[in-house]
């Protein structure tokens, strides 16, 4: 499990076209564990994609990772991921598949969504929910935006950690 202040685990995971992506190579990287079937992940989704769009000019990368057991939850299958990407729901955000669930375990991810912000050196600087209320679009992912602003400005995010809120990750038996 990764704590704020630790170096986050590295990984290489394929997107829906089979192209592998790694964190890093940016002044800040957002790693968000998400999925297709969870209402919390879906409710927050557009806000997270908006963050990717709004911060790409400052060099921020956003990587979405689906860690769920697709056998028990077919709506989280690679085909279902690809359908959402082809539908344009992940503009500017590679949607990666953590089939072994090893990345989710290494990060200590608990829910979908669960957001991690890494700085340029790969140190975890924020972990938790995108904002305070999945049901209020006006919140605008402000925990995540605040963390990115802090990291990009060389400050410590405040808060640096919030409780992740969402559906439990569907671990393989």
């Amino acid at each position: 499990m990764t704590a704020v202040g630790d170096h986050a685990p590295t990984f290489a995971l394929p997107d829906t076209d089979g192209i592998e992506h790694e964190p890093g190579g940016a002044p800040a990287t957002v790693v968000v564990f998400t999925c297709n079937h969870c209402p919390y992940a879906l409710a927050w989704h557009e806000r997270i994609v908006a963050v990717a769009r709004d911060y790409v000019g400052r060099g921020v990368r956003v990587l979405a990772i689906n860690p769920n057991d697709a056998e028990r939850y077919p709506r989280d299958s690679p085909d279902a991921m690809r359908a959402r990407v082809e539908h344009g729901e992940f503009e500017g955000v590679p949607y990666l598949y953590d089939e072994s669930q090893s990345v989710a375990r290494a990060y200590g991810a608990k829910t979908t969504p669960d957001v991690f912000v890494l700085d340029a050196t790969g140190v975890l600087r924020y972990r938790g929910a995108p904002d305070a209320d999945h049901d209020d679009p006006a919140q605008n992912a402000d925990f995540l935006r605040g963390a990115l602003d802090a990291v990009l400005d060389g400050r410590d995010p405040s808060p640096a950690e919030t409780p992740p809120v969402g559906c439990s990750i569907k671990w393989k038996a």
Partner: protein
Amino acid sequence: MRVELLFWDGCPSHPKALTDLRQAMVDVALDPSTVVVREVETQAGAALECFVGSPTIRIDGVDVQPPREEPVGLTCRVYRRRDGRISPTPDPADVRDALRAAQATTTRGNR
């Protein structure tokens, strides 16, 4: 009238759903203490209950937002609010409408 809330503990939405349901019952002059709350704990239980996700609210056995093609299982349920937003809980207006429809049916049946 039998008002039931079925939930799975792996999904955090049922406390809010129960609060909203009880408020909806107050809004239509029903006793909110009569809600029957039941936990679905296993896949077999989900199949037995035709449970497509948490929370599920049924009034006299009828789902407040009848599922379309969702498979039964232990999962969080996806609802659409009336403004189109996706939500883990049903729109309170839909719950109130379902309660009123059941009240009307009960009233007609008692005549």
